[in-house]
């Protein structure tokens, strides 16, 4: 595996044959679907490049949530009245949409959770507590978000298990050989991000799953940054668990999906207790509900779930693969433009990347860059991106991160470049 010598080499390598985004994809027209993008910030047109933190929602999602509260609000699975029936039907319809979106075999393999973080905590608490004991190992990578580190640390602490971390190279790519070496007979679970939020690296999850399964180890994929930017098929991947968040998928906050293979989910104990997750309760014995309700205690985020259904519909209509191709070209364009700026270093130069452009500027702290960009209407993230070990790996405290969605344009990338020039001017 060769490592690009410099960010510029990497940029040149990743700029494909095309320099301008595909003609068939009309981002300007798509922007009309997102009312929030039409505003000005500090007197400048909003350039929203913080999509890896939260993506914006199209009008259809907002309408779906509105419609729920205006005409249909009722609890699910309980009412014998019309509104409850309608809510239940739409809630379950979203489950079917998520099943199709992920290519899952069964609807009951889709569990509604608050987001990716809760999905990972669910697996750590339920699967982990049952299957992990003293001296056992959980394997993650050095590019994980805190949400794919801390739940495993908690589990390891409780069980006397060991958290193992597969290293990454200077480009921010997983060192696959090392990953394979770390798989052993004590490994009980692999949990890995599909796409890194801090670096944009796309992990070779197909190979990693093969390697892990070769040793009989199940694999959880954190798909928070992947599901919005590439087509995912959990059956083709053969992953055991897959999670993503609604708010990064152009849907509402507070809702996400955990996919799990039915056999694994069935054998797992409940995660939280409460209503809806039971069949019968007495003080002597409680019988748990069937999948997926066993993992959905209490009244869920019904409006958010229905909003997520609308977001999945939007993406299906848009064509996620075409959107991903456009984003790939936009990222290549941005990488090329930004890497030409003097005194700027791109952090994360993997050969395969999605959506994320993280960088540092000589002599400028990322927070100052973030403030100066914000004053020009450009929204980026500045900080450690909830991936402090990644920052440590690159010997930095923080980066400035621009992250793209299909509604971003080359003109916005140009605005970012001008904005960075302004940052350099202030500190010149």
């Amino acid at each position, binding site marked *: 595996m060769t490592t690009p010598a410099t960010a510029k080499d990497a940029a040149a390598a990743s700029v494909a044959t095309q320099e301008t985004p595909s003609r068939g994809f009309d981002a300007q027209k798509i922007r009309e679907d997102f009312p929030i993008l039409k505003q000005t910030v500090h007197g400048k047109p909003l350039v929203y490049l913080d999509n890896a933190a939260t993506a914006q929602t199209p009008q259809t999602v907002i309408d779906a949530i509105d419609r729920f509260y205006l005409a249909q609000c009722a609890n699910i699975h309980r009412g014998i009245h019309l509104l409850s029936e309608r809510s239940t039907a739409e809630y379950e319809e979203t489950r079917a949409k998520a099943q199709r979106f992920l290519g899952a075999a069964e609807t009951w393999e889709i569990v509604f959770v608050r987001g990716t973080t809760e999905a990972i905590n669910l697996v750590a608490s339920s699967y982990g507590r049952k299957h992990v004991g003293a001296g056992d190992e959980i394997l993650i990578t050095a590019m994980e978000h805190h949400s794919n580190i801390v739940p495993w640390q908690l589990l390891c602490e409780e069980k006397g298990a060991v958290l193992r971390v597969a290293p990454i190279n200077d480009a921010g790519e997983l060192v696959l050989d090392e990953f394979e070496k770390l798989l052993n007979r004590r490994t009980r679970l692999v949990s890995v991000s599909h796409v890194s939020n801090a670096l944009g690296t796309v992990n070779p999850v197909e190979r990693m799953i093969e390697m892990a399964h070769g040793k009989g180890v199940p694999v959880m994929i954190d798909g928070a940054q992947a599901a919005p930017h590439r087509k995912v098929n959990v059956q083709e991947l053969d992953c055991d668990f897959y999670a993503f968040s609604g708010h990064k998928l152009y849907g509402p906050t507070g809702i996400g999906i955990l996919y799990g293979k039915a056999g694994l989910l069935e054998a797992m104990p409940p995660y939280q207790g409460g209503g809806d997750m039971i069949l019968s309760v007495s003080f002597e014995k409680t019988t748990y509900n069937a999948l997926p309700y066993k993992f959905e205690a209490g009244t869920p985020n019904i409006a958010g779930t229905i909003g997520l259904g609308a977001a999945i519909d939007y993406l299906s209509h848009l064509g996620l693969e075409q959107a991903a191709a456009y984003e790939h070209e936009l990222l290549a364009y941005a990488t090329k433009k930004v890497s030409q700026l003097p005194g700027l270093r791109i952090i994360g130069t993997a050969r395969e990347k999605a959506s994320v452009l993280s960088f540092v500027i000589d002599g*400028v702290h990322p*927070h100052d860059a973030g403030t100066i960009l914000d004053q020009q209407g450009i929204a980026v993230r500045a900080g450690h991106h909830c991936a402090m070990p990644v920052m440590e790996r690159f010997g930095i405290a923080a980066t400035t991160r621009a992250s793209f969605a299909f509604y971003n344009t080359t003109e916005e990338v140009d605005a970012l470049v001008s904005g960075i020039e302004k940052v350099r001017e202030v*500190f010149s």
Partner: protein
Amino acid sequence: MSDLGELYQELIVDHSRRPRNFRKIAGADHQAEGYNPLCGDKVTIYLKLKDDVVQEIGFQGSGCAISTASASLMTERAKGKTPAEAEALFDVFHKLVTEGPTEELDTSQLGKLAVFSGVCEYPTRVKCAILAWHALRAALQGAAEVVSTE
């Protein structure tokens, strides 16, 4: 709309690039560390008191331009002050960066620190400006633990 000039004034940029008193004070009798977990900024304040007056003061750490310049200008201003005077400075500076330069606020004692009056328009940056001051206060009060902006 705020003009960026109001935040990143020449004096702030200068002190962020060439911080004054950026050193550990040998034999410091008071020291405290400040940490902002949101952005990872860290600052350690070292000082020596003599006859109830700050005789020597220095700082070390890493952070953004606002936090570094604030620490640098603070050490310049705090030298020669009694702990009570430094505490009074803290109060005035805190009001300046959170509420802005109001008519009631007497900023005369702040000297060059008045350059931070633009921070109040950037709520996300107030903690950057105030970090070193929390550390100074903790150092003077003899607190041993790391003070946090949270």
